[in-house]
């Protein structure tokens, strides 16, 4: 996948993964990398930035694996931002699809 596209949607993907349930950092790394090829370490600075911007919140939860884990949950501002990004994504996807179909018809 084109890296510029990945950069543009990574915020939205991470926030979307937190929309239904809270998750910890590596869990998000695994989820996102299943569908989008990313370097694992890119997620953590991104999460830090999202937290600094107030889009996500963190808390510690006891873990059966040992030390408590830091979990991320979507903040209200993050929910609003995510909805805006989803709307923009749908709009852009529709426009791109329409243009590609039109180009294909002209070629055909």
């Amino acid at each position, binding site marked *: 996948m084109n890296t510029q596209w990945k950069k543009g949607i990574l915020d939205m993907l991470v926030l979307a993964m937190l929309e239904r349930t809270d998750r910890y950092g*590596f869990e998000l790394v695994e989820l996102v990398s299943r569908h989008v090829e990313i370097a*694992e370490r890119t997620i953590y600075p991104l*999460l830090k930035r999202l937290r600094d911007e107030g889009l996500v919140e963190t808390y510690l939860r006891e873990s059966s694996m040992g030390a408590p884990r830091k979990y991320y949950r979507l903040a209200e501002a993050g929910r609003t931002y995510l909805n805006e990004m989803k709307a923009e994504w749908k709009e852009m996807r529709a426009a791109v699809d329409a243009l590609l179909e039109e180009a294909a018809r002209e070629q055909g």
Partner: protein
Amino acid sequence: MNRDDYLARIDERLRFLTDPERIDIRSDLEELYEGLRARGMTDAQVQSRIGSPQTVAAEYRLSEHLDRLDRYPGPATGFRIGLATLSGQVARGATFQLFGLVWLALALLTFAAAAVVIAAAALAAGAIAGYDPIVTTLAMPGIPPVSGALIGIAAAAAGVGLVLVSRLAMRGLSRAIRERLRRRHTDAMTNHDSGWVLDAAPAHRQPSRWIDSRRAVVHLGMAAGALTIVAVLLMLIVPAPRFPVSVYRAESFELDRGTTIEIRAHAVDVRIADGDVPAARLTAELRRTFLQSVDLSAVSGDTSVVVEARHREGLSWGINPKPLLEVQIPADQQAAVTGLVVVLTGGAEIDIRTVPPELRPALLVERR
């Protein structure tokens, strides 16, 4: 190296961060490390995947500097990031990209430092001018007080404008650096690149007010320029105030506290003014003291008129001569005043220069 050594080295290199931030990053790295190990990777593979301690620390250092540039776009911050970039502390591969911008940052730092100095001097000058326009007039003979005050205000405004411009420029530089890094790290998302995503798109942040700042700076600069032009025009157009007659002017003197200067005018055949002709007046004005004037219209013959000027504070002027003592005699009474005696007491000394010479009556200086 093993996991603990690897993480300890990163932690050591992150000492420029606060303890909570460092602990937070350490926690994230531990989680990532364990997660990659759980996939079956060896220590070497995990460390290669995450990056060397130098790389990790350099990326966080650069991110820290850039965040600080956004929050505090001042010369000190720009200097720090410039030094960090030149010393190779920033992200591997980003140094070359930032090289040109670093030199620009250093140039802006010099500009900003000069702007701060100019602003401080201009504000001080403006404050003095506003406080005492007479000071400005006496400091620059021939310039009306209004012009002097306007020059001070214009200089102060220009100085403030310079400081704002430098601040704005540092903000712009911060954005330029971020843009360069965004383009540089386009491949950071793939597993084949060793770069970091430092800033995808902070679209959620409040819109920067730097455009508003730029507009304000432009307006301020235009106002300062307009004020300066007005002040210069005033200097050229408005003639300097001329006293009726400035006969004697003391350019420099020293006075001790309580020193008295007596100025005595010997008048012969003083003409009493009729109609619109003002009465003769002998006025002695000593700066920073009270003013006394004596009306000569009531005297006649060879009469001594004493004008006493008592100075309240010790005062010394020598480096920047200013006209501080003027004896004025109206032009139409010039012929009536045949002599002038300046009596200095208490060790006072004055250096008297005359303006203009053709109007100078005889002058005698007595010291007691």
